[in-house]
């Protein structure tokens, strides 16, 4: 069985977030881009584990973005994966991004499409489910475990206040989060091998954006912490009641 892993680049977690052009553009200056952690640590590594266990035959990576994203895809290939595809279109509209992945996957016989539970830039948590919706595949969100039994996937997923284990008919799209696999660091052999792995550029299919980001805003700066000492707990409680009005 073949697995397609969706990989996105995202600004490193510790990046300072700022905007340019009258708050309409994310300021990439000085920002280090990484593989979106949920795509890397959970979806990709779990796919590689399934291949190492002899369950998956091929692991393919796909990203949607401009040429600048290739560095991050090479990093992902250094962890493993047989080859990678980059759909050559830049968009912040989840529908456009998902349409590219859905169209690419449509007739390629992938049993599983794995995505991270969300990207740490736009936090939409939507591309995986959009792909499932576009291709009419089954969908499980927030999976913490994934195994294959016969022609089905057995998936443990987060639910409100607990966990549920489901049997899912394939093909399916699964969004992955913590618990799915142990984070890995690429080794030198992987990094060398990644240099020669095929990174295919795919031309995008036509898809009209259905949404656009018109502007950004930074949250108001905290005015500064109001400190109390251990003898002033009544005063703290009074502040929570009178000022913050939360109790």
């Amino acid at each position, binding site marked *: 069985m073949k697995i397609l892993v969706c990989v996105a680049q995202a600004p490193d977690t510790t990046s300072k977030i700022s*905007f340019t052009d009258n708050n309409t553009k994310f300021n990439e200056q000085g920002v280090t881009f990484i593989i979106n952690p949920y795509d890397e640590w959970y979806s990709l590594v779990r796919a590689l584990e399934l291949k190492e266990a002899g369950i998956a035959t091929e692991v393919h990576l796909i990203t949607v973005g401009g040429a600048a994203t290739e560095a991050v895809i090479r990093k992902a290939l250094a962890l493993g994966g047989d080859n990678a595809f980059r759909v050559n279109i830049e968009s912040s509209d989840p529908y456009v991004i998902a349409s590219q992945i859905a169209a690419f996957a449509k007739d390629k016989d992938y049993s599983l499409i794995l995505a991270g539970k969300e990207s740490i830039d736009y936090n939409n948590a939507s591309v995986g489910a959009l792909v499932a919706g576009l291709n009419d595949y089954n969908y499980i969100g927030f999976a913490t475990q994934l195994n294959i039994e016969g022609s089905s996937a057995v998936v443990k997923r987060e639910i409100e206040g607990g966990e549920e284990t489901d049997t899912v008919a394939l093909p399916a799209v699964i969004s992955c989060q913590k618990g799915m696999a142990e984070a890995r660091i690429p080794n030198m052999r992987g990094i060398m091998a990644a240099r020669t792995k095929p990174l295919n550029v795919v031309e995008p299919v036509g898809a009209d954006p259905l949404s656009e980001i018109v502007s950004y805003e930074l949250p108001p700066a905290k005015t500064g912490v109001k400190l109390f000492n251990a003898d002033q707990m009544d005063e703290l409680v009074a502040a*929570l009641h009178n000022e913050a009005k939360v109790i």
Partner: protein
Amino acid sequence: MSVLVFVDHTQGAFKKKSFETINYAAEIARTTGGNVTAVAIGSINAEELKQLGQYGAATVLHASDSKLDTFNAKAYAKIIAEAARQSGAKVIITAFDVAGKAVAPIVAAQLKAGLVSGAVSYPDTSNGFTVKKTVFSGKAFAFVKISSDIKVVSLVPNSFPVIKGEGSADVQPLSVSLSDADYGITVKEINKVSGGQVPLSEAELVVSGGRGLKGPENWGILEDLAGAFGATLACSRPVADAHWRPHHEHVGQTGGTIRPNLYVAVGISGAIQHLAGVNSSKTIVVINKDPEAPFFKAADYGVVGDAFEVVPRLTEAVKKFKESHN
């Protein structure tokens, strides 16, 4: 614009976030002119459905097939899309929770509708349809304009207070023909772990502990504090990783993202990954013995001191306050 709301339930009972999404839908319908229809799926009794009228739903479409008692994103999305067609809704609302995050994009794909995931404001309809949402893990907001005819918006729970009014919804059966392929998921096992507490994603008050508490045996003081506030417990990643506390209590970038009215962090330094999960909290109180802990920069109120000394005193102060305000 007529609005459709998907209301999720737990064993036939609706929760606060469902009422909040109906309120939100009602406000959109009120300002743009239209009706509010709720769609509910699975076994729910009629009284429970009718009371959705108190929050602003004129009509409830109920798909009651017991096969739908377990959650299935694909089947649910098809029912919601059909309900949207039948009700003529131009806007579809869900909560931005586990169920909503799964169904909203599938509905959007099926109806070719633009999607805003994780809205925190009412749409601005003065020039199109623009909704504010959090991005960069709470470090910024984006204003997203939807250009399609039909729009799907998922609302971050606890963004708005719930307002209860009068009224009884008109409940109508909704029948949607689904194929066997739409039931491609079967539930093998469900493990519920929370015992009576409000789930973290909905909690208005949260008390959270980190490594500074030194070990799971010391959680009693936090339980007492949470009990005094009526708060739900949470923890930082190292605490969950060390199995001091169950994983579902973990908040932060790799755990849950929450937006309570009050977040009390005890013995948590405030690493950027932790803040990503909690920085949308309306008020943050930090208790830490290290005055240099980065969390103080993100806090509204702080106590520099030993948790084992400060927390019991705070618990007493909260109890005293509650007694005098009852």
